[in-house]
């Protein structure tokens, strides 16, 4: 084992049953170079205070549970390493723009509702039976949507987007990326059905192209582009209504 160093970790604590508001608490954590911020938090929970509360599971940046603000920046704590902050103090807080339930755990119910509202499933363009085998998808068709399938629902982009903080009803970058993923899939024909939401008051026009969402996205989904491309789509849909009785959704 390499030499043990001690790093100072400041944690934003909040216990709804005893606290009026969150406060910072300092822990001194021994660490090795391979330790992530998540492992730092686990160390605290195992050794100092079992009541420290946070979500985690996979430790490999794929389940999307462990997002938090690390020195003010939304990051996955399992792929952020303590060594990169040492010898400075590191501050971890619950993700911005979400209500805090307890310590680092935020209320995600709003996000889940948004996710459910976008019809995130194939609405078949052409039905196909299992006996007919798979749909054929050319590399070009595949490349159109594959990037937007990488979203792990970590909501870091929500923690990054000030418009989400200012208007909690805004459908937000992550859900829009997923919506766009289905719209762009050659198997799907549901774009018109999803347009209602895209073009609604909760929809894409809440976005002012801050683009920080794409900056923090750990999976390079580029949700900002999904949101913004859909502004153009929604605008087209808006004006097309006037041109043809069939064009556009209601």
């Amino acid at each position, binding site marked *: 084992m390499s030499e043990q160093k001690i790093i100072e970790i400041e944690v934003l604590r*909040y216990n*709804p*049953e005893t606290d009026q*508001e*969150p406060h910072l608490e300092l822990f001194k954590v021994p660490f090795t170079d391979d330790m992530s911020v998540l492992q730092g938090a686990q160390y605290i929970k195992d050794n100092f205070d079992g009541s420290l509360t946070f979500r985690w599971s996979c430790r490999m940046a794929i389940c999307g549970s462990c997002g938090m603000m690390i020195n*003010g*920046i939304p990051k996955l704590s399992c792929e952020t390493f303590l060594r990169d902050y040492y010898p400075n103090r590191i501050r971890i807080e619950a993700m*911005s723009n979400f*209500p*805090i*339930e307890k310590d680092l755990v935020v*209320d995600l119910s709003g996000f889940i509702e948004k996710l459910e509202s976008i019809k995130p499933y194939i609405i078949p363009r052409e039905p196909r039976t299992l006996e007919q085998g798979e749909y054929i998808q050319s*590399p*070009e068709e595949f*490349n159109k949507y594959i990037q937007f399938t990488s979203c792990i629902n970590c909501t870091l982009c929500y923690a990054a987007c*000030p418009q989400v*903080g*200012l208007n909690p009803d805004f459908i937000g970058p992550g859900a829009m990326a997923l919506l766009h993923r289905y719209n762009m899939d050659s198997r799907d024909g549901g774009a018109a059905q999803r347009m209602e939401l895209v073009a609604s008051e909760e929809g894409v026009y809440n976005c*002012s*192209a*801050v*683009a*920080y969402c*794409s*900056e923090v996205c750990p999976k390079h989904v*580029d949700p*900002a*582009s999904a949101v*913004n*491309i859909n*502004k*153009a789509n929604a605008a087209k849909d808006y004006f097309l209504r006037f041109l043809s009785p069939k064009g556009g959704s209601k």
Partner: protein
Amino acid sequence: MSKRKPYVRSMDGWWKKNPYFVEYMIHESTALFVAAYVFILLVGVVRLGQGEAAWNAWLEALKSPLSVVCHLVLLAGAVYHTYSWFKILPITMPPVIVGGKKLAPEVLTGTALVVAAAAGLALLALVWRIAL
């Protein structure tokens, strides 16, 4: 009875908390520079409509040192607007596919900036032609 008590943090001063947001606010503020200039221009158009004397007075006013300094500031703002506008272009427009690959954002922004420079120069050339 549930003991939940979710705590909602205030958004006050959010834009001061991250250098990224400070930059965003600066680039948003370039709209004010553009607006200010367009306003001056609008005055010019009105003066043009009022006849030669009015027009010349407007031209004269532009020559004051204060005006020139103001325009230097406006120029800086306008250039920053151009730069920031095209910097976010890659996310605001559908991906450009070249040879089966998505064009890198830097390439797109770079190209757009070149186009903007060309547009400016074309305008200059046009004005030059009118002048001759």
